[in-house]
């Protein structure tokens, strides 16, 4: 664990240095952000137990594999910048899908589970007017880290996190990973394409 921490710390320092240098070129006054990067990935959903915001202890694979398409992100409730943006996008996604939203499963997993109790998740969900198909999860630190690692989002410390959204049309299908801040329009489009592909229809937009 300490070895991981040291490596993570080094990694984080490098990322921070890169960010400080990179920040001059990106995401700043006068520069629009780079477009989000999409890629297709395979992930093994780890068999961890998480605690849902309603207090129920659940199995992550069971939550994810109930047949519904999944839209997944990782947040923490005291995050000031990235998480409110990502959660606003989920809120808008629900809004724009309208009645179709009920067939999706939006999942937000806390990367600060010791602070993010179920009560705090409920409060956070309320901030973004989460519908019943959007659930927030916490649990032990170990379970959260295992989930983060499984989806390639673990950065060692919550302040080092980045915006990532993951979509999967159905259990057994590959995941679409979107690195960067995706707009509601983009997310809705990617989601619809993904569902169309699942049912065999030709996707509306081409994908890399």
């Amino acid at each position: 664990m300490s070895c991981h921490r040291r490596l993570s710390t080094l990694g984080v320092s490098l990322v921070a240095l890169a960010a400080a240098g990179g920040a001059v070129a990106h995401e700043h006054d006068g520069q629009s952000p780079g477009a989000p990067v999409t890629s297709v990935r395979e992930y093994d959903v780890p068999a961890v137990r998480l605690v849902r915001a309603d207090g129920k202890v659940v199995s992550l694979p069971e939550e994810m594999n109930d047949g519904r398409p999944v839209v997944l992100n990782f947040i923490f409730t005291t995050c000031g910048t990235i998480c409110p943006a990502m959660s606003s996008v989920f809120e808008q996604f629900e809004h724009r899908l309208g009645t179709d939203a009920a067939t999706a499963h939006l999942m937000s997993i806390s990367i600060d589970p010791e602070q993010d109790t179920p009560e705090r998740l409920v409060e956070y969900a309320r901030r973004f007017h989460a519908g019943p198909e959007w659930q927030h999860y916490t649990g032990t630190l170990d379970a959260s880290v295992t989930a983060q690692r499984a989806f390639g989002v673990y950065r060692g410390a919550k302040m080092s996190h980045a915006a990532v959204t993951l979509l999967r049309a159905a259990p057994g299908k590959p995941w679409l990973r979107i690195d960067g801040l995706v707009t509601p329009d983009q997310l809705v489009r990617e989601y619809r394409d993904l569902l169309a592909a699942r049912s065999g229809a030709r996707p509306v937009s081409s994908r890399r």
Partner: protein
Amino acid sequence: MTACHQALGLACLFVGLAPPCRAAGAAPAAGVGEAIYLRGVTGAGAQLVGTRDDGLVATGVDAACVSCHQRSGLGSVEGRLSVPPITGNYLFHSRDHDGSVSSLPYVESLHGNRDPYDDAKLARAIREGLDSQGRPLGYLMPRFALGDADTAALIAYLKELDVRQVPGVTDTLLHFATVITPDADPVKRAGMLDVLEHFVAEKNSFPFKPSPRMWTSGKTQYSKSMYMANRHWELHVWELTGPAATWRAQLDRHLATEPVYAVLSGLAGSNWSPVHEFCEQQGIPCLFPNVESPVVAERDFYPLYFSKGVLLEAQLVARTLLGDGHPAARVVEQVYRAGDSGEAAARALTAQLAGRGVTVHATVLPAGAAGRAVTLALRKAAMAEDERGRALVLWLRPADLATLADVPAVPETVYISGLMGGLEKTSLPAAWREHTLATYPFDPPDRRGVRAQYALGWFAFRRIQLVAPEVQADTFLACSLLADVLNRMADNFARPFLVEQLQSMLEHRLITGNYPRLSLASNQRFASKGGYVVPLRDPGGKRAESNWIVP
């Protein structure tokens, strides 16, 4: 900015922008700017509205500048996202001819690669999302629907955020205070002061040297002012006297005569509230005092604690008793001494158990009670006609726990506070240990490892006597964290920045003393979130990570 406004701004800085400053006839604009920046409320009392390119709208406190640009206005770095500083200096400063902005204190998210703003261009940035050169601002920066008066007020506030001079910071020295309340334990006090004095002396044994400065351009320059980290420390010991109602006035007087930059460590008896409120209202970071019963106010900014102490322990007891919704006990008897930390703990536990089908009784030992009176009270509390479904919770110190040797009837289920009564070294009689669970807000000794060894080695080398190991370890940890965070601050003195940097760096630390891990963020005041419940019949037994409970 008028001279009047400037003077007001300076005065505000000296009292940390506390309400009294505004009350003293401040221009209306000052309050409005702050309300927009910190709370997302406009001059008319309406919710601030911020809109981003993709149509995402944030309102009120979710739109407030502070969320991204921080209380100090110096911005932050979150992963790959860099939020720039927006205090007046950073916005209005002209570029040097090599493109850098070398005379301003270094902040990680700083870039000077643009023309300076003026008031008009800044208003345009806030309302239309264009930078000083007309280019679109970063994607996350919203456009704000603000009228002229509100925009002017906000811009004035950004100029107020510039730090000109901070109390307790001189060219060569940083002044800190440690606060000790009159009911603090004398042995803990001595142990804490021993650690503080050694740490400060050692810090000051390093000679002054000029501070090199590096810029993103890779050039190195020697700073005109000395880095925070290189300054020497001066420690002021503020010993409070008399009743708690008088402490705030004493603290204000101390501050007036010996201005300090931050409050470091410190020691309470059962009450730290006046000190917490002093720090929050005066805008002074209050760094990890040794308190058993802290003030729980997650949305406060300046006070930081290692853990919730006995309040956490009460939550641990409640969590263990209530289990998975089926209470392990129907009746809980609590015992505490009036006026001691146990009183707050008992109150917290009663609140946790309210409405859960558990009856809670309390036996209160008067503050001065001793000898036979204590024995009788404890015997009464320990006895019960029906032991089933009953738990005894003792919020007592070692002296009272030792008295239990005269109480032969041991209940089935007993809880003690490890923080108050001691863990492995508790004076609880052997017959009682068999049935007792101790709550503990730290790692038990078998799990501490190198995280805690470091401090012990440090103490041993300097021949510091371990008279109060947990307090001394926590004091050393507070000093180390302060030293570390000053390293990150370059020559930036803003007090809120100290808190913000601590929040950013804390999670990366490997040496976390007696705590398994430490972590903070905005709206988080307690760095360690959980504890253990340890069966005393086998205190040294191996404990799995899964026994760590976060209530």
